[in-house]
């Protein structure tokens, strides 16, 4: 800090604290609300401290079928994890191979392939969701993990990012590998993949969150609770027309839905930091 002025210090700290409160208060309320019983939540004041239930609500949503959902949250978390992992891993694998082909191989219509991939960047899932649904339905993919993952598995963004990274790899590295007797697969496995470790980690986080937060597509393709994802279920829990909303259950479920993305970020962050400190270029 080069400029230390008291007024500036106070102002910036005040702003920081305000932002922290704005961000943390809802989370805090969710945590405390999840530990109350339904009666105490309908007294009219939001509880700022833990209630009588302790972890009871969490235990309940994880082990017993929740309200209108017909299944427990463990199952929903599993579904979401499978979907998010499938999408993240699939996107990265496909993007690596596609970018590898585009950058390191000379084949007819190579440029056209790249531009076609690039153009799909402009088409979000929602734009093509009806035809995609029709195709998925015709293939019998409704209510299946394949149906959840497959239509979202290709990523132009990731392909583009890997392409840009591969273009910065010195061509001599490829030549040295060729002289050293490494074929295309070996070059990919031994040289290119280790070099793209940090890119892969970053993309994994982004793509996992993307997959986890999918709402519209799982909502369309799953009609039965055994393949429903947790994000979709959250909304469903809230829409109880004739009952009181069981806020303690909703809060517990919401908190559980937050845990896997947080875990992924915390775990992968160590790779980022490692990649930054140990930058291998």
């Amino acid at each position, binding site marked *: 800090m080069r400029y230390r002025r008291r007024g500036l210090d106070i102002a910036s700290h005040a702003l920081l604290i305000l932002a922290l409160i704005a961000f943390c208060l809802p989370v805090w309320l969710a945590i405390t609300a999840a530990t109350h019983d339904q009666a105490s939540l309908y007294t009219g004041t939001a509880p700022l401290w833990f209630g009588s239930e302790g972890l009871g609500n969490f235990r309940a949503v994880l082990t017993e079928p929740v309200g209108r959902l017909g299944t427990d949250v463990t199952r929903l978390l599993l579904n979401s994890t499978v979907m998010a992992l499938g999408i993240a891993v699939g996107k990265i694998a496909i993007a690596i191979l596609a970018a590898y082909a585009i950058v390191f191989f000379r084949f007819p219509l190579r440029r056209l392939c790249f531009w076609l991939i690039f153009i799909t960047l402009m088409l979000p899932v929602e734009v093509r969701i009806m035809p995609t649904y029709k195709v998925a339905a015709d293939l019998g993919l409704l209510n299946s993990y394949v149906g959840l993952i497959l239509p979202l598995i290709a990523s132009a963004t990731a392909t583009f990012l890997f392409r840009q990274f591969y273009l910065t790899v*010195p061509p001599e590295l490829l030549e040295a*590998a060729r002289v050293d*007797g490494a074929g295309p697969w070996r070059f990919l496995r031994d040289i290119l993949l280790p070099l793209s*470790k940090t890119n892969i980690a970053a993309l994994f986080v982004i793509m996992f969150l993307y997959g986890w937060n999918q709402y519209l597509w799982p909502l369309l393709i799953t009609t039965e609770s055994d393949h429903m994802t947790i994000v979709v279920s959250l909304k469903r829990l809230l829409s109880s027309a004739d009952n009181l909303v069981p806020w303690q259950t909703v809060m517990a479920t919401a908190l559980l839905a937050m845990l896997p993305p947080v875990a992924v970020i915390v775990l992968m962050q160590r790779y980022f930091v490692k990649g930054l400190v140990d930058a291998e270029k």
Partner: protein
Amino acid sequence: MATLRLNALRKTYPNGVTALHGADLEIADGELIVVVGPSGCGKSTLLRMLAGLESISDGELAIDGRRVNDLEPAERDIAMVFQNYALYPHMSVADNMGYALKNRGVPKAERRRRVEETARLIGLEDLLDRRPKQLSGGQRQRVAMGRAIVREPRVFLFDEPLSNLDAKLRVQMRLEIRRLQKRLGVTAVYVTHDQVEAMTLADRLVVMNGGRIEQVGTPMHLYARPASRFVAGFIGSPAMNFLNARLDARLGGDILTLPCGTRLASPIPASGEAKTVCLGIRPEHLAVVPEGDVIDGDLSVRVELVEPLGADTLVHARLDGQDDLVVARIDGIRAVAEGDSLTLRPDPGRLHLFDPETGQRLAPMEPECQHSTCPA
């Protein structure tokens, strides 16, 4: 250990540009060939064709008598040292050196033994666990060398391997490369644009220009008997002086007349009528003549610039009444100042004459000598 034969090797790119117009060369077992030339002369293309990194458009390349035109780089059993070293950044020094062996399925223990043996040979024992980025430029250069040596290839290819090093390290590594290559006895092709590097390293030099091989020979042969004006100007530092002269027959000997009127005895006989030739004199073959000792054939010049190098001094001077600049390399202890008048005497036995149009040497070419000790 291998012999190489290049037979009318040609490279034409798909866009129609021809980078190499048919190169012929025989390389003996254990020989260190240095290919030298200005940028864009095709020397790197030639090397990459030997490596198999560029396809061969026409002609034949044979290693040990076997045609290798269509073999992958790895199948040619060559090792290459790149200008930027091209070390694998994520691998330790040991893994970098052992990668080729690993790809060939050499067992781990054997691989380790060979890597350690090579590391000892080039003084890398203590660095085997480091990553390339933890090494200095000279150490990286060594690793690149080690990576080539450990495979025990038939041919080493060097693509300007020293151009990223500082001057002192370059001289040191140059000697080391020479020592290692002789000790291992591996045939090597070394590409550089640095003619000093080329002269000191080469068993034989290949001078290239515009996609063609201009001349092949020992460094001293190329220095003493350049086949063309290009070679004459490229080999030797500072470059040879070129002056236009008229060659005509006179009674009592054939005479070269310089534009300033100076007359020199011609090293070659004039044929028929007088003609213009290009006279080449190396800076080191111009001696300062003491005043009062001037004879016919000496050049009187005015000094324009003095570059003291220590042992020698380079004098850039203008011929009296002419625009031609000449450079002379004179003894460093002689005091010369800008603006001085000097008399320079060309060494009569070391004049070179070239055809002004074709640039070809206008003297009977001796058969090419094969030894670096060949008399000048």
